[in-house]
């Protein structure tokens, strides 16, 4: 397994290089001149030259790319062009708010989706199964912005069930995170239930399930020990690959609820052409994605003894 992991890590290097090249070109060829934005309305050629010099964007492209590679290796992305603070410091500051929303919400969403999917698969064709499937499809069809706007307006403003806006660190700030969490769960629940229901249905119709039932095993044991465990591979794929995205935060929810997380920061950085911050997000996101892909493979072997990592 160690050799497999090492080989996958090595495969990750060219992928990461490709990502850095694309990101660099997008910002330097398509993205325009950041000095123009920073110079403001009273720009002069001299002022623009000064800013380019300070940012280092007047250096040859290859030299700038090498600097980007150095930053990628050292994970030191310098200072934000807008905030004038170290990028690492900004990311650390945004990580806790993002995770305090994303982790419990994602956990709740996954548990609820698995439970509902298992129920639907087991009682397939029943009134409740059909209702849940219809609700799931309807839920998927509604744009995410609608959930946020209606949730904030009705649940928080009209019915005063939750605070409208704001954030405070946990545990004191749990009230601020409840509504964003509910919206997060509702946003993802439809597609998760549909996916897991399909997985469970396929598994529940396998011969070994019928054999287990014929042997007289209790229903719960069949469902949770056998069906759920054998359905774990697609579940692991979906769950583990989602984890890097949790760290990058939820863009819209954070914006609307004033959660100072990484999603919020990403939008701000893109709007302001803050290349050091965008670079950091792209590289960290890519590295996490590669690492969690490898972790997924490792977990396959753990979940299914038939899988061999070579």
């Amino acid at each position, binding site marked *: 397994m160690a050799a497999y992991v090492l080989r996958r890590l090595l495969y990750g290097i060219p992928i990461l290089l490709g990502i850095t090249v694309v990101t660099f070109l997008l910002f330097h060829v398509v*993205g325009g001149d950041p000095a123009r934005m920073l110079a403001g309305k*009273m720009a002069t050629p001299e002022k623009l030259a000064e800013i380019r010099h300070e940012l280092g964007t007047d250096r040859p492209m290859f030299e700038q790319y090498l600097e980007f590679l150095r930053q990628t290796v050292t994970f030191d992305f310098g200072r934000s062009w807008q905030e004038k603070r170290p990028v690492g410091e900004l990311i650390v500051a945004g990580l806790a708010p993002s995770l305090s929303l994303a982790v419990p919400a994602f956990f709740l969403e996954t548990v609820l989706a698995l*439970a509902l999917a298992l129920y639907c698969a087991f009682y397939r064709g029943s009134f409740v199964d059909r209702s849940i499937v219809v609700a799931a499809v309807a839920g998927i069809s509604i744009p995410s912005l609608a959930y946020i706007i209606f949730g904030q307006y009705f649940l928080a403003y009209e019915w005063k069930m939750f605070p409208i806006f704001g954030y405070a660190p946990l545990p004191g700030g749990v*009230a601020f995170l409840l509504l964003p969490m509910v919206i997060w769960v509702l946003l993802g629940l439809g597609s998760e239930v549909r996916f897991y229901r399909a997985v469970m249905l396929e598994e529940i119709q396998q011969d070994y399930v019928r054999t287990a039932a014929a042997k007289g095993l209790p229903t719960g044991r069949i469902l949770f020990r056998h069906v759920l465990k054998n359905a774990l591979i697609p579940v692991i794929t979906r769950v583990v690959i989602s984890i890097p995205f949790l760290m990058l935060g939820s863009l819209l929810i954070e914006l609307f609820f004033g959660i100072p997380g990484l999603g919020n920061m990403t939008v701000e950085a893109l709007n302001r052409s803050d290349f050091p911050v965008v670079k950091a997000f792209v590289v960290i996101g890519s590295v996490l994605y590669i690492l969690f892909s490898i972790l997924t493979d490792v977990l396959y072997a753990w979940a299914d003894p038939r899988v061999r990592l070579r």
Partner: protein
Amino acid sequence: MPLLHRALLACAAVAAAVVVTAALSACGTDAYPGEPPGTLHTYVVSEMKGFDPTQAGEETTTLLVLNLYDQLYEFDYLARPFRLVPCLAEAMPEVSADGLTYTIRLKRGVRYADDPCFPGGRGRELTAHDVVFSFLRLMDVRVESKGSWIFAGRLAGLDAFHEATKVAPKNPARAAYTAAERYPEVPGLVAVDDHTVRLTLTEPYPQLVWTLAMPYGSVYPPEAVATYGEEFMNHPVATGPYTVAEYSPAQRVVLVRNPTYRAETYPTAGAEGDAAVHGRLDDAGKSLPLNDRVVVTVFKETQPMWLYFQRGFLDRVGVPKDNFDSAIDPVTRELKASFRDRGIELDKDPRLEVIYDLFNMQDPGVGQGEKARAVRRAISLALDQEWATRHMYNDRVSRVDGPILEEFPEFDPAFRNPWKRRPDETRAQVLDRARKVLADAGVDPRALPPIEQDVQESTIDRQLFLASQRDLAELGIQVKAHTSTWQEMQERIDRGQVQTCGLSWGADYPEAQNFLQLFYGPNKPPGPNGANYQNPEFDRLYDQAATMQPSAARTALYRRMQEIVVDDCVWVVRYRRLQFTLRHPWTYGYRYNDLSPKYFKFCRVDDAARRGANAEANRVAFGPPLAIGAAVAGLLAAMVVVARRTKRGW
């Protein structure tokens, strides 16, 4: 109990926990439980980027810097037309007869707020040396200042200093610019003694005094820069009415009263009509600041900001575009009764700006020659701005005829832009006039190649383009869009690739020169003359007026310059936005000023009135949470019933 039922019960418990916690937290939806009285709640619409005055290039930093720091001068809070009054200065500057030397005497006894950067943590008295240091730092290239333009080329020796900073090592904690470190002397910026500053200009610059009221003109102690270095941006040390108690750039900043703030009082006289405005002069003569705390919250989306105001968690709000119809009557353009009944008041203030369509005057199609001028004039006439005002802007804009706004002393009330629709003219008449302009110049609009308009990627810009396309089609002029971001458009303007595009310019100070510089030849891109307009007569008049102190003769020159650019139709002069602000009845003293939003110290909130109103607005409704809980319970019950009745489906 079967395992499946247990799982269902677990799910039920989770759902019930959410509902119960929500119901319980509902009792805590007051945004500021336990807050001390005397707190003003206001907001910004973008993330805060610190408090360094050299970085005050955008709205949020400008607001924070102006309200924390003091400048030599500030705008009279209530006076309209705008005028300056001394802030740190004792009086208005003494200007030499040749207009080159400004002597400014400082108030005595103005102290910095206590801060660990001072010996013993006790703030010292502000001196003229601090003014010199702050202005030099503004010109330091290594500080990446956004405001060096206010002094560039103006003060004797300052450009040489600016050049010297380019080769100096970067030092964020630099607290002095000494000859030992090869910084040249700056004869144009001298502390004559502890309480006198002398500014010597390279040539007369009558607008200088306005720039001294800008956030870039803020004064701070070198000790703060030395102590905090790069973190100075997050540790303001100032003589202003507040100090920072809590700061989270993406969330909020809490300011508290500076106990060592100098004696200052609310103005006793306002502009015409101020006496009739609720809360405008109620605190006349009272000691400033009028509140003990200010909480500035970051709202990047307008919906939560609007809901916060409605619940009484914000004391004032600019009406967001998306909520305009819910607050403002579509016919009368006044506040709806549902808001008036709650005592909420509406202020309508025109912004000091011009929204315009720029033509690239170097472009052969729309810029060069008599025929191109006729095309520009015809376009200006044919664009149906009345329709756009009504349907695109909900009447949130007002007509502008030229670049000199009515708040400026040089404004000519008799001036009418001949290339705009007259109030008494019908759409058909103005189109006939446009056709005649083209015909007189021998232009066949159908033979013209399509004009390319740069359009930004927002819905409103796209809609405005479609409206322009429709309007000009009535003349037979075709327009096509070139979609770009703001940044791309600026770069295309710099490279002279834009034919026409929509832009706006907000005033930096209330003088015609601030807008007329947009037509001055040497200010060509990347400078503010985005139209690349080159007119020798205009440039000559501009040069002549630039060194003149305010006078009737200078006003005449500015008016003549306005006539030239309007006659040449360099811009389609469109309109200016109206700022609609709502105030709760417990908010006193708020006055909109987009030039200098220095209002924190002048605002007061009536805590008793706010508490009473908020208790009513925030009364918890128990019905909806219970209904949602019942719905969840019903779903779970149905699941259990199905589980019991359904035959297992292996």
